[in-house]
């Protein structure tokens, strides 16, 4: 039986951990490295750090954050956002990433996937696919946080990505991301059935039940979770002073959560999975 990975996703903007809804409207939560260490100590199976603005002039600050996380966190870490060249990937790995996620650069020039897989090993290269469901039921791939249309059909693109040598696919439902309405199970199931490489479901987890659904119905190999864990910290009674960044402390200390999100701990999610007969590391 496969062991499902529960992967906290950290969206990073400048020095801050942020969280949006449908990849938009980013709200500052706190220090990414403190959240990362907390999740590591509480049973995260991997971490997924995404530079959500991916502006080149802030790249050094991302690398500093990654290096600080890598010193304290001894589980695999994937870094994504704005990686366009082999040199960008090398720099992310040198900062302490174990794997990288690419999206836009892969869509612009699909051979980049093969070049990256050859240079760093297939298992180091994840391709991120941002999917938006169309009125006719098809899923199309987008870039730039769901803003740029590519015309690519998600399932075809997923198959192509596998052929080109990607090690894993992380499939984001832009429609669900940050909403707490649950993963897009149909989308994940279609992608998972189309490829032989592992598929990571992302976008929409509002409760531990959403996590078990996407694993048992859609055969996801791993899940990214963000809001439910972040809000789990915000609404808990642990001392949050360490988590805070300069300014923008209002949300973290407010104790408020979005109404569709059930604030959860990693252990809540994992015990729920085990209760559903799904193997995971506890």
């Amino acid at each position: 039986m496969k062991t499902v990975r529960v992967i906290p996703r950290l969206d990073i903007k400048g020095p801050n951990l942020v969280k949006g809804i449908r990849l938009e409207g980013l709200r500052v939560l706190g220090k990414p490295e403190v959240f990362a260490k907390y999740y590591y100590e509480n049973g995260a199976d991997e971490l997924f750090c995404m530079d959500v603005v991916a502006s080149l002039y802030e790249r050094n600050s991302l690398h500093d954050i990654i290096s600080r996380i890598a010193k304290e966190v001894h589980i695999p870490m994937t870094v994504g956002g704005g990686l366009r060249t082999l040199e960008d990937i090398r720099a992310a790995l040198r900062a302490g990433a174990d794997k990288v996620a690419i999206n836009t650069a892969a869509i612009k020039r699909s051979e980049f996937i093969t070049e990256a897989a050859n240079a760093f090993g297939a298992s180091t290269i994840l391709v991120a696919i941002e999917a938006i469901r169309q009125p006719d039921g098809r899923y199309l791939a987008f870039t730039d946080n769901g803003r740029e249309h590519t015309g690519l059909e998600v399932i075809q693109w997923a198959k192509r990505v596998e052929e080109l040598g990607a090690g894993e696919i992380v499939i984001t439902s832009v429609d669900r991301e940050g909403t707490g309405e649950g993963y897009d199970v149909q989308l994940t199931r279609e992608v998972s059935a189309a490829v032989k490489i592992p598929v990571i479901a992302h976008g929409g987890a509002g409760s531990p039940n959403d996590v078990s659904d996407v694993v048992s119905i859609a055969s996801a190999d791993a899940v990214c979770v963000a809001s439910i864990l972040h809000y789990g910290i915000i609404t808990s009674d642990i001392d949050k002073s360490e988590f805070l960044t300069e300014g923008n402390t209002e949300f973290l200390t407010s104790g408020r959560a979005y109404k569709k999100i059930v604030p959860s701990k990693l252990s809540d999610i994992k015990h729920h999975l085990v209760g559903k007969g799904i193997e995971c590391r506890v």
Partner: protein
Amino acid sequence: MMSKRIIIVDYQLGNLFSINNAMQKIGAPAEISSSPEAIASSDALIIPGVGAFGDAMNNMKRLGILEPIQKSVQSGRPLLGICLGLQLLLSESEEFGIHPGLGIIPGRVRRFPNKIARQKVKVPHVGWNRIRVKDSGTAKRGFKLSDQYDGQFMYFVHSFYTDACDPADVVTETDYAGMPFCSSAARGNVFGCQFHPEKSGPVGLRMLKEWSDSL
């Protein structure tokens, strides 16, 4: 006690930072080096691993470090191979053609099949999986993996696995898609694991600590 000089062998493939960070964390700092002299004068070696088998052997040849590594092992100094570092210890690999390895542990490195008993198998094997301790290792001295690791989760990322010829060399086994494979092997002073202890959280760090304490 004098601290031992541990070299993380840099054969110019993949990420050495994780293992380096982990060794620092457990209080056994190591040096990253690709120098034949450093390898020859070290007390223990770590061969980490990400990348392709053939490239790794070619790089080691080019760097002139194959012989120092073999001499170090023959002289009885400990070696820890991780992931590809375990695979390189075997006689040969099927990755992109047949390539000879270091030949310290007899056996062959094979690819996971895409189907086992008609079930689709995801390759690479990525994620956490349990190890079953078969044997505490045949080493007369040096590192023994204790029974406390039996059933523990470790982190794996690989498409190829080691098929060791001598069952006595197999220290742990792991099931993937219903197929048991050798997830760590040892012979004498040499220990290799397919999983990444440096990425396996506190349990993996504890294993590295015990290995460094055994030096």
